[in-house]
């Protein structure tokens, strides 16, 4: 036997060698290795005791096995399996079989029979379970083969009567994963397993072992996931399982009930102990609600989570979840929420509670009080009061989902959500604030609710405050007192936490624009104007005053009567703010007033359309460059660049577009300057200055093109082509300059080669875009390609020079949306004169807080750079958890940077800056697929050439004063 085996081993060995001939380079190393299976065989034969054999197997399992030798190894293992008496070794072999059949590229067809055969004589339950697990692995690899699947299911059914729970467990799992899903297939195959799998699994819902019951439910869920429509009959069985003694069974049963309620929402089920019938989804909802007060928190979390996704439930059932009838000494009591509402509707505000204020009034019928309701009563009330915060969070999430689909429910759950703002765990508070924001279009806050919401503004956690600002941005307030209250509280917040300035201003901007009519009556009070007397002019630099103005100006935008209430200085302040905080102050039509003195008067401020037009016009103008003399070209470009930059400053919506175009034109300008004709005619060695200028220009163009490619979001492949084209031109320029300055053809040779390779890859990447590039540099270059490849470097350079100068300027089409990635470091502010002192050699943590806009995938790309006075630079990768995402396109980086340095004699400044890392590989990959954005698709085909990695600084550096002191001895 052994000899026979060895022979097979060697056969296989030679096979491997043969393959190596086909692909020599990749598999060279393996020649020296002996075959895995051979080694294993030898080892196992050597093993004298089961413990030894186990050791060998364990060692063997640590190393991967090549696809080609898997089958051989499996045969050897099986051989030993039959010989082995020790159950633990057989167990290990069985698990190894499973591992081996997982090997990518290996098709376990050939070992199915052997694996099934091993089951026959196995006595040990553990080994049996492991073997079934192996079969499961094999089965999942061979899903396309129905007959194998059928056989495996049959085997599993046979072992379902085993007395060990582990074996039954695995059998059910196997049936769940491999059981026939299509009705037709099941009929064709005449076998035992063709019976209804659902029935087989359903029979085990009553198994004596809770683990098997769980496995049965899970198998059922697995079948559902694989697309089998579960029968409605299971519902009653599953309901019984909800009362199981074991939490994992209940947890799985809740899931099963949920699945069924989604499958048969409209069917009718009877209510036990009465003649009534209700919809299944309502019944299921009631049952799951009941589980929210289960004894195990795992089940509670599960139940609370699932409630959120049951949207077909009837509204009266839904509203019951928030209902909890209070009573005291058998008399009906109103909840605090009801009282608050009543106080509000009766017009008087809380008078401060007296003892007995909440004294119960109506008598209740003792028979009518249901202490444990069968229905959904109070499920969320319980969930939100749960002791585990996991349950509370799940309940809040579920509330959010249900409220989003039902406005009336949203209105009702508001009180409860507001209550959650006072939870003891910050995560829960944050979650409920976010939830409130998500449903805010469905609701209007009452004054007392607003009061509670605003109280949270004093929270010391910045996340909470900012989430709340975000919430206030999109809240509807019902009264003018509400607005006033909000403003007062926000101003209080501003004085307490001055760093929240930007966020508060922004919040007031939206608050104003949402409620112009409510702000109107408040204007005289807010501006403290007086009908007869002039009041002193407020301080323009006061953030609180700016906040008030932001609110008023935004309200005035849609309320034309408001400006009449302004006093003179308000108009002046408007003009100032419109210019300095243009993103917060909208353009206003101010009637009867000529504000000529202001730098940007409202009449001049272009509306969106004209400014866009302006952008396009200036671009049009530039595209006719060819017809101008070089001097004219330069001037025109310079002017246009200046115009665009100014436009970007004024119109924040167009800033990205304007900057992008300006950068492009800048590149063109540099190129034009560098190629000025007369300078190039001078003999090269004589004109050093020109060379320096040209190489500097080339370098800058390269830098700018990287910026264009990676700093803007929304760049499409058409732009990418042009950017790459520009880069190619810059490289050509570099080549020319190098050719002029270096002597000898040796170094040039390599450079030319490289350049041609790049042209080639450009052509491959952007083949579809080439027709649009008539007359461009690359177009001409590709025409000359056959010549270039054969000619000498000096000739290549010459060709390049002429092509470069003759090529036309490419039009840059503008995408729909273009945003420049920006970062703003809020903290450290760089204003502190107190140095951060620490002992040299030790570490000090510097808190960095920055907002990032339009950065895609900040976790991967944003880095923090710290530049020490000695020129030493340190780049820190923030943790992914340090990035928060407060809104679309915006990110917030709150991280700590660890600094350390050797001792200094006096405090000095270090620079902190944010960098955007890029990798040119990604752009090329994405350019191949025009649809995808540049940030995704890292996993596309590997690029032959090395990608260029680099970083772009994209925030203003902030200076921090630090002082490492020498350590005291």
């Amino acid at each position: 036997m052994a000899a026979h085996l060895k022979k097979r081993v060697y056969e296989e060995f030679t096979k491997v060698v043969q393959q190596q001939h086909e692909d020599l380079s990749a598999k060279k190393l393996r020649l020296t290795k002996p075959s895995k299976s051979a080694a294993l065989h030898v080892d196992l034969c050597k093993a004298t005791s089961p413990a030894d054999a186990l050791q060998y197997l364990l060692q063997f399992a640590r190393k991967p096995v090549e696809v080609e030798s898997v089958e051989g190894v499996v045969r050897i293992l099986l051989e030993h399996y039959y010989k082995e008496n020790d159950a633990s070794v057989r167990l290990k072999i069985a698990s190894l079989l499973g591992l081996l059949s997982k090997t990518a590229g290996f098709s376990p067809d050939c070992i199915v029979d052997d694996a099934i055969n091993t089951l026959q004589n196995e006595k040990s339950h553990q080994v049996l379970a492991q073997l079934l697990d192996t079969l499961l692995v094999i089965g999942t690899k061979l899903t396309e083969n129905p007959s194998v699947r059928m056989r495996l299911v049959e085997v599993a059914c046979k072992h379902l009567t085993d007395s060990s729970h582990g074996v039954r467990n695995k059998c059910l799992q196997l049936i769940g994963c491999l059981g026939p899903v299509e009705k037709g297939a099941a009929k064709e195959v005449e076998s035992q397993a063709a019976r209804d799998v659902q029935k087989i699994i359903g029979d085990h819902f009553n198994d004596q072992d809770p683990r098997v019951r769980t496995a049965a439910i899970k198998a059922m869920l697995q079948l559902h996931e694989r697309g089998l429509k579960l029968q409605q009959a299971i519902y009653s069985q599953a309901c019984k399982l909800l009362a199981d003694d074991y939490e994992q069974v209940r947890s799985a049963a809740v899931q099963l009930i949920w699945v069924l309620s989604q499958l048969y929402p409209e069917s009718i089920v009877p209510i036990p102990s009465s003649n009534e019938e209700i919809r299944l989804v309502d019944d299921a909802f009631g049952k799951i609600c009941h589980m929210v007060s289960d004894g195990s928190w795992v089940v509670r979390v599960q139940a609370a989570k699932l409630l959120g996704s049951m949207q077909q439930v009837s509204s009266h059932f839904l509203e019951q979840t928030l209902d909890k009838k209070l009573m005291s000494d058998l008399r009906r009591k109103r909840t605090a929420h009801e009282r608050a509402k009543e106080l509000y509707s009766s017009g008087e505000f809380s008078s401060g509670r007296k003892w007995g204020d909440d004294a119960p009034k109506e008598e209740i019928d003792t028979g009518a009080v249901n202490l444990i309701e069968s229905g959904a009563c109070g499920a969320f009330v319980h969930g939100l009061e749960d002791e585990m915060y996991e349950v509370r969070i799940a309940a809040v999430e579920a509330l959010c989902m249900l409220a989003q689909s039902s406005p009336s429910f949203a209105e009702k759950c508001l009180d409860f959500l507001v209550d959650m703002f006072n939870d003891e765990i910050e995560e829960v508070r944050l979650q409920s604030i976010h939830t409130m924001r998500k449903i805010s279009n469905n609701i209007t806050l009452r004054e007392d609710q607003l009061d509670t919401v605003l109280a949270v503004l004093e929270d010391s956690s910045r996340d909470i405050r900012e989430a709340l600002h975000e919430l206030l941005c999109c809240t509807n307030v019902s009264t003018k007192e509400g607005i006033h209250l909000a403003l007062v509280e926000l101003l209080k917040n501003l004085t307490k936490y001055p760093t929240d300035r930007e966020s508060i201003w922004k919040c007031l901007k939206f608050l104003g624009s949402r409620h112009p009519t409510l702000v109107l009556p408040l204007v005289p009070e807010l501006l403290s104007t007086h009908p007869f007397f002039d009041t002193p002019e407020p301080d323009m630099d006061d953030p609180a005053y700016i906040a008030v103005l932001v609110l008023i100006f935004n309200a005035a935008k849609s309320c034309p009567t408001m400006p009449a209430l302004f006093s003179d200085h308000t108009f002046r302040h408007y003009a100032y703010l419109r210019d300095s905080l243009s993103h917060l102050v909208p353009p206003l039509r101010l009637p009867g007033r000529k504000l000529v003195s202001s730098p940007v008067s409202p009449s001049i401020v272009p509306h969106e359309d004209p400014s866009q037009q302006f952008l396009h016009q200036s671009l049009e103008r530039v595209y006719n460059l060819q017809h101008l003399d070089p001097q004219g070209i330069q001037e025109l470009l310079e002017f246009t660049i200046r115009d665009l930059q100014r436009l970007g400053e004024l119109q924040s919506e167009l800033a990205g577009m304007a900057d992008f175009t300006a950068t492009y034109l800048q590149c063109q300008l540099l190129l034009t300057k560098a190629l000025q004709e007369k300078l190039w005619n001078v003999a090269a060695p004589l004109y050093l200055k020109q060379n320096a200028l040209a190489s500097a220009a080339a370098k800058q163009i390269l830098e700018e093109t990287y910026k264009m490619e990676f700093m803007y979001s929304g760049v499409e492949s058409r732009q990418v082509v042009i950017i790459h084209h520009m880069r190619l031109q810059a490289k050509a320029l570099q080549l020319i300059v190098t050719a002029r300055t270096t002597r000898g053809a040796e170094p040039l040779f390599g450079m030319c080669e490289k350049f041609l390779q790049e042209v080639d890859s450009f052509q491959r990447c952007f083949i579809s875009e080439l027709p649009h590039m008539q007359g461009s540099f690359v177009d001409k270059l590709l025409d000359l390609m056959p010549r270039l490849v054969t000619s000498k470097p000096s000739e290549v350079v010459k060709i390049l020079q002429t092509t470069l100068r003759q090529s036309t300027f490419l039009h840059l089409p503008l995408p729909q949306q273009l945003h420049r990635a920006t970062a703003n470091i809020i903290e450290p502010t760089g204003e502190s004169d107190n140095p951060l002192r620490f002992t040299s050699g030790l570490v000090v943590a510097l808190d960095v807080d920055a907002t990032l806009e339009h950065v895609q995938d900040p976790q991967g790309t944003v880095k923090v750079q710290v530049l020490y006075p000695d020129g030493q630079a340190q780049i820190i990768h923030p943790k992914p958890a340090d990035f928060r995402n407060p809104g679309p396109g915006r990110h917030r980086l709150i991280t700590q940077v660890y600094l350390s340095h050797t001792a200094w004699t006096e405090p000095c400044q270090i620079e902190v800056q944010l960098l955007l890392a890029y990798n040119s590989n990604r752009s090329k990959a994405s350019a191949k697929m025009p649809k995808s954005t540049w940030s995704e698709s890292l996993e596309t085909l590997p690029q032959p050439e090395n990608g260029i990695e680099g970083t772009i600084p994209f925030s203003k550096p902030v200076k921090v004063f630090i002082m490492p002191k020498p350590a005291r001895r």
Partner: protein
Amino acid sequence: MPESSFLCLGAGAGQDVGRSCILVSIAGKNVMLDCGMHMGYNDDRRFPDFSYITQNGRLTDFLDCVIISHFHLDHCGALPYFSEMVGYDGPIYMTHPTKAICPILLEDYRKITVDKKGEINFFTSQMIKDCMKKVVAVHLHQTVQVDEELEIKAYYAGHVLGAAMFQIKVGCESVVYTGDYNMTPDRHLGAAWIDKCRPDLLISESTYATTIRDSKRCRERDFLKKVHETVERGGKVLIPVFALGRAQELCILLETFWERMNLKAPIYFSTGLTEKANHYYKLFITWTNQKIRKTFVQRNMFEFKHIKAFDRAFADNPGPMVVFATPGMLHAGQSLQIFKKWAGNEKNMVIMPGYCVQGTVGHKILSGQRKLEMEGRQILEVKMQVEYMSFSAHADAKGIMQLIRQAEPRNVLLVHGEAKKMEFLKQKIEQEFHVSCYMPANGETTTIFTNPSIPVDISLGLLKRETALGLLPDVRKPQLMHGTLILKDNSFRLVSPEQALKELGLTEHQLRFTCRVHIQDPRKEHETVLRVYNHLKGVLKDYSVQHLPDGSITVESILIQATAHSEDQGTKVLLVSWTYQDEELGSYLTSLLKKGLPQSTP
């Protein structure tokens, strides 16, 4: 059917709040649950009547153990009196925190009664110490074996630090005593929890039998808002509290709020008792709620950052402050002193966090009195705001029902509540859970009949053999099993017949049933036999039916022989013989044969 009984004796609890003391007799074991005192009395009535338990004879001989659920005096106040003065030397069980805090409270109580009121014939400090030496501390979910049969197990009960519910188990009979418990978590404690232990009896408190409470959050929010507003406008807040329990909850509440809102106003805590107890709160973190347990690695929540010890002189300090002072009803002591000082200023506020007994200052101001007559004919005008904020840590009606649902008891007994309210809850429990519910008065005994299951040891070999015969065992269905029950030395054993015979030294006797069945069949004997054989083979497909060469048929171990009737050759007599083990099959066969053979098919 054997019946065993629980004897539940409300020595003090019954339909009454205060003075909890319950005697349980379970399967011959006597356990006393709690040993409380009544705060309202100053004479003999304050302690339970222990003479009720045994008229003559020592308590130690009668009681197997005493269990204390938590440290409130109405649950443990009479303990030193009971153990030292009446005389009990057996074990006393309580949880670790209760054991730590209980003596502080007892000592305080003793001081007030003896030193302040000057009573004699009361327990001494030494007695408290001696009593505590008898205490055995238990952990949560730890099963403590009191003796070979009696075991107890503690479950978390919320209410106060260290409060526990106890399961008392003798054999397969069990009682769960809840003590006081709380089903909704609060700022420092979690919710009560019990597993599905299905006790025969659940003894539950029912303080709030007829109340369903509103969400705690509203109350907390109101409380915080009021304190915050007062502090913001520069006022002082006085919160009279009882030393332990609620005070800690309010402290945590204010502490976290101060932390969250970055407030700077000082919070003071009147010293003494509470400070000592706070040390224990710091120690027993595992008994607190999720938040405190999770964050204590960074900071122990009971190490208050904002709350400092109070000094008498601080009351006159200008500016806002919050003061917790004892006692809770404003009837004496520090809280009253501070109240007098601050009452005149309308910026200040007093918040009463609990119920006040009639006649106390607290009760007067809560009922709206604005002018108070103090001792010495002084009239004190109350201008400060008066607020009432209830923070109670008992389960409400819903909570009680929830606990019953969790534990699934067979009977429920309600104690520690008012009779009228209990009546309502009793009715509800019977209606919802279909279990019987009792509510004994003080001194009344309730007997509950149980249906105990009797465990029998079975040898593994027999079990395996028997289960192998049938299908898979199913818990829900009883299963038939063959074996011999041996009753020996007060224990039951189920063994295989062979083993039983061996043990008893008996020889085995074979018992065979033989039955004659007459069949009308004119044919020859062997043909008849063949027909019978074919018939049986056709009917009994799952059994092995064999035709032996000697002309007889065997079905499993049953033998069938056919002979011609001596008189009538047309009648054949079938002799069916089986052992008693095969009784079932044998009788089936005879009845089958009696029906006659089917008409022969040619």
